[in-house]
């Protein structure tokens, strides 16, 4: 099939490669500079200090919870956006994607006015005995707010490129919409869903602005790793650098392990609808 070979003609002009190299360098250089500033003899004590481990643990827990929420809300949203056909669809997409371009601090302020004590829902929640401000829940909400678009965008793209023809066939075979979703749609877009979830997790892990504005900062409750880094920077640059490196490593591991790029490769993945029928040349 279309497996890429090393010798295949790529058609990329050299000057594009040069600019790409500059771009890659632009991303890598600051990271390398940071690594160069790490106080290696103190590195282990710095990253294993109680404050660091507490912040890391909280970050991993909240990012995992946010990812679950992103999947929960993002899958239906992506389905509605990719498959639906209704008035205001473009508008809905714009709003869902807004947090992508919004400064996180603006997201934090918006969340504050929605879920804060004096907020739109916050008052009712407070009457119901639910307090979100200064709680870990607030951190999860802030992270979900900023990370949701990542899941929706990558899943909607996967849904669109998979097309709806498999779903139509499944329906004519007698499968109810829920069965079609469970047995056809989701398995087909699983790679897209996985990479969307990983991106959401990574984005949640790095969330800072909205959390700072909306959730506050208390060790073990709301002070995630980025907030801890921001605070450590005030007094202990070595600790901040060490923790930054830790965050980079965690992010690289998470993304590297499961993110396989926008075009999933391999035999188990969904073919694009257009080429689905053209495997006449494949030997049995």
């Amino acid at each position: 099939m279309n497996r890429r070979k090393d010798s295949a003609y790529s058609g990329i002009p050299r000057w594009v490669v040069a600019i790409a190299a500059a771009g890659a360098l632009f991303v890598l250089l600051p990271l390398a500079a940071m690594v160069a500033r790490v106080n290696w003899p103190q590195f282990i004590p710095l990253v294993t200090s109680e404050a660091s481990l507490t912040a890391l643990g909280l970050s991993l827990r909240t990012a995992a919870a946010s990812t679950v929420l992103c999947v929960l809300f993002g899958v239906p949203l992506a389905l509605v956006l990719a498959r639906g056909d209704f008035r205001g669809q473009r508008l809905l997409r714009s709003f869902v994607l807004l947090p992508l371009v919004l400064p996180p601090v603006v997201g934090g302020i918006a969340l504050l006015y929605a879920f804060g004590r004096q907020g739109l829902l916050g008052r009712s929640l407070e009457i119901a005995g639910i307090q979100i401000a200064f709680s870990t829940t607030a951190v999860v909400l802030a992270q979900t707010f900023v990370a949701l678009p990542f899941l929706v965008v990558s899943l909607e793209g996967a849904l669109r490129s998979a097309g709806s023809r498999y779903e139509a066939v499944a329906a004519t075979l007698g499968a109810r919409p829920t069965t079609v979703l469970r047995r056809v749609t989701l398995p087909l877009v699983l790679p897209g869903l996985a990479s969307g979830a990983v991106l959401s997790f990574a984005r949640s892990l790095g969330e800072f602005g909205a959390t700072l504005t909306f959730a506050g900062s208390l060790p073990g409750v709301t002070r995630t790793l980025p907030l801890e880094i921001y605070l450590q920077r005030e007094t202990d640059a070595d600790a901040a650098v060490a923790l930054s490196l830790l965050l980079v490593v965690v992010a690289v591991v998470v993304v590297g392990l499961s993110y396989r790029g926008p075009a999933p490769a391999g035999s188990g993945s969904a073919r694009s609808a257009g080429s689905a029928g053209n495997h006449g040349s494949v030997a049995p």
Partner: protein
Amino acid sequence: MTFTVDAALAARRFEVSLSLAPGETVAVLGPNGAGKSTLLAVIAGLLRPDTGRAEMNGRVLFELGAGVHTWTAPHRRGTALLAQDPLLFPHLSALENVAFGPRSVGVPKREARETARHWLAEVDAADLAARRPGELSGGQAQRVAAARALAVNPEVLLLDEPLSALDIHAAPLLRRLLKRVLAGRRAIIVTHDVLDAYMLADRVIVMEDGRIIEDGPTRDVLRRPRSRFAAGLAGLNLVSGTVTAAGIRSAEGLEFAGQHDGPLDAGQAGVAAFPPSAVSVFLGEAHGSPRNSFRVTVTDLEPHGDQIRVRAGELSADVTPAASADLGLAPGLAVYFVVKAAAVSIYPA
């Protein structure tokens, strides 16, 4: 116990009325964009017409019009669709693909797999059960897709050019197989190939511009085509016009002498049909017993089997390569097409 569908969809200029008896297989022919796939989509419930009604065995599939909005979802219609692309679910094995339909309607896993094995065997694909779609050839995939469609025991099987994506080796095999499984089964098969109509269908409908323009038993439609499209499929020249005592007069004023096929009144609309093989080509005007002779200009020459097909506008003639060379045929050359009256059948339009 019949299946009827009446549907109109203004946006696609589609308006069709059709009914199928139990066990009847209908071939739908027609040029691209005639509305053949629209017909299948409307029946399958994938496309909602503006108005219309469809009923299967006394069950209403849809009824749309002023004040009525009955609509049965695709999964409750008892139709199954086999398209040009097999569209096998890539994440499921061939067996699970075939078992998909039964399982979707609540058949237990084991039983669904049994059914799937049965249908895979029925399409000579039992040995492919464990394969993933990516490991199947086009012909194999289409056979598995056929088994998948049959495994739900559809009340009407919809086939949308099921053979057109297959190579010349795979198509005959699947055509024979379809002939076997479609016997006694209600099915609608959209096709471009007249062979499919001959082999698989009891009845043919010809669609053009969203409407059915011909409907009848396969033999009749292909022997006595009334539309140019059907005539083309049947490999016949077709001239429509007004019936005269001797034959027919075309709109351009050409007189065709021929055999009246059944009782005909002068003045009614009729068509004259004759095969290209009955047409001879001369450089000069020919004389003799009842013959039709027309001066035409050659527009095209193309190989046709071991003959050369000479096209002149809407008419064609078949000549041997040697004759073609002798006559010096080339596009633009003025020649005479001559056909014996005995070879021309005249029948009502």
